[in-house]
């Protein structure tokens, strides 16, 4: 049991006495003071932790929600349903959904190849998967521009197109599905696959009936994290997409522009929509993933 943070100071004072008692006893056997001392320490820790989270996370999020709700539902609705906001939110959600589906396929494929295949340089490829997490997002944008931008060696120029938005989001979300599927695949008992194969099931049947059900929870949780990340992504998109309203402006860029123009009401309202869509998808897919893993387990 953790005493409420308010008691922290009082208990901390007692803590000194308990410490003195402990030193006097020379640390022999269980001490009556030790439990109190531990409690005081926990209370103090809880208080500091609570303060940190309040200042850093809770207060700002409360301010965001309060600001979005300030003018009531009608004001919120009119901010969210302005044509530019609708276009930005629609683009964000549609491109994120496409990116998540591509990730589900490509991520599972990559995880499969990394676990079940052997080829020279596999360890380097495996290490490279995490690069999008380590690379600053703005650098991700510059990197993509260097190859797929104007004057690039491929002759492909995606700058200022919706494809550029998708490309940037695919880059930054690449590791999620791979890294959630990989450990499951490593742990997967192959005897069921072998048994099915020896009973005459084809490779497709074995995958669909035995491997895929076992991987589904991991694929879903990777997809959920990808979606949450894609919906809020800013740094990698900002240079390559050109941020053209009604064309390539995503939700986070819209929020940024509204903040720059001192239109905080619109920024807060659209922020809340972005946050809610990420949270809803995240919790729905996590719930789905849990129920699936229960079926399999």
């Amino acid at each position: 049991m953790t005493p409420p943070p308010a008691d922290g100071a009082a208990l901390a004072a007692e803590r000194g006495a308990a410490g003195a008692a402990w030193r006097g006893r020379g640390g022999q056997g269980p001490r009556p003071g030790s439990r109190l001392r531990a409690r005081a320490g926990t209370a103090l820790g809880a208080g500091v932790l609570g303060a940190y989270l309040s200042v850093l996370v809770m207060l700002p999020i409360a301010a965001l929600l309060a600001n979005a709700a300030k003018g009531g539902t009608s004001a919120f609705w009119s901010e969210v349903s302005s044509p530019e906001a609708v276009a930005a939110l629609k683009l964000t959600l549609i491109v994120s959904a496409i990116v998540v589906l591509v990730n589900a396929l490509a991520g599972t494929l990559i995880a499969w190849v990394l676990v079940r295949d052997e080829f020279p340089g596999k360890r380097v490829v495996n290490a490279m998967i995490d690069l999008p997490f380590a690379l600053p997002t703005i650098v991700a944008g510059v990197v993509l521009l260097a190859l797929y931008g104007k004057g690039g060696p491929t002759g492909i120029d995606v700058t200022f197109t919706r494809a550029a938005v998708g490309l940037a989001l695919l880059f930054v979300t690449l590791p999620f599905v791979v890294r959630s599927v990989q450990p499951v695949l490593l742990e997967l008992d192959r005897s069921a696959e072998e048994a099915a194969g020896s009973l005459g099931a084809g490779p497709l049947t074995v995958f669909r009936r035995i491997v895929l059900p076992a991987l589904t929870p991991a694929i879903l949780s990777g997809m959920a994290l990808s979606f949450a990340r894609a919906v809020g992504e800013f740094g990698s998109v900002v240079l390559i997409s050109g941020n053209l309203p009604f064309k390539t402006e995503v939700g986070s860029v819209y929020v940024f522009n509204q903040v720059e123009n001192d239109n905080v009401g619109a920024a807060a309202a659209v922020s809340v929509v972005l946050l809610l869509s990420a949270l809803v998808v995240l919790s729905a897919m996590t719930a789905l993933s849990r129920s699936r893993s229960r079926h399999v387990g």
Partner: protein
Amino acid sequence: MSASDLAATAPSAAVTARRTGPRGGGRASAHPGAHAASARRLGLRFLALGYLLALLGAPVAMIFYRTFEHGLAPVWEAVTQPNAVHAFWLSIELVAIVVPLNTAFGIGMALAIERGRFRGRALLGLLLDMPFAISPVVVGLALVLVYGRTGWLGSWLTSNGMQVIFSIPGMVMATAFVSLPFVARETIPVLRELGTEAEQAAATLGASAWQTFRRVTLPAIRWGVVYGVVLTTARALGEFGAVSIVSGRLEGQTQTLPLYVQDRFENFDGTGAYAAAVVLALLAFATLLGMNLLAKRTKRDTVV
């Protein structure tokens, strides 16, 4: 080719092979089956590696080529510009403040979630995951709404002579918010696996809570913590959206290295942008190396 090899390549059918139908998996030594299996395996390998090359490998290689195509001199000149140097040290300063802060609080949150018994634990877990669900831009906006000039605490801060937004404290908060979960999220599974037996034994033998933590818990979770620290560092160094909003992006004052990259790019200074981006990319590669060395370490530690 063994039966397990055949089974191993089986899913390739889902992607490449069509109309193959059921084949005698039991007769794995049959040549046509083995041949198809190895063809599928190669097909899958090239599909996966091709995707990675197009999305990841080639673009990253390209930026190094673009940066160094005219030799080292222009790159050196670009990265030693006063604004670039200032941006670099500002980024390092933010990392030096945020990483210790989030390491201490990350361990604290991991202990509270995994070992604590209080009603708010679910809420704490939710708060911890917030940075994963929230856009960096929204983080910046939320901070402005509290600590900005017209924010909740704006007038109080101003009358006390404190400026948070458009200065270092705000940038520290933005960076700390987005990199909050990593240490805790890496430490929680290690704590769970560790169990409480050793800690209880230490307590029974008369160790205080702090002694138990320092002598028993911390050594056991250290690699998880260090892994989290590496992730925190990478995130803090590269943070863009949140810092972009709260910093005001003042050249030579509140411009971090990622913000400098954007500024150079938008001012058509390709060399400057690429050079600064490569500096950040090299730091990312160092991070990656650290992650891989530690991944082995953590595995070894948790297995024993």
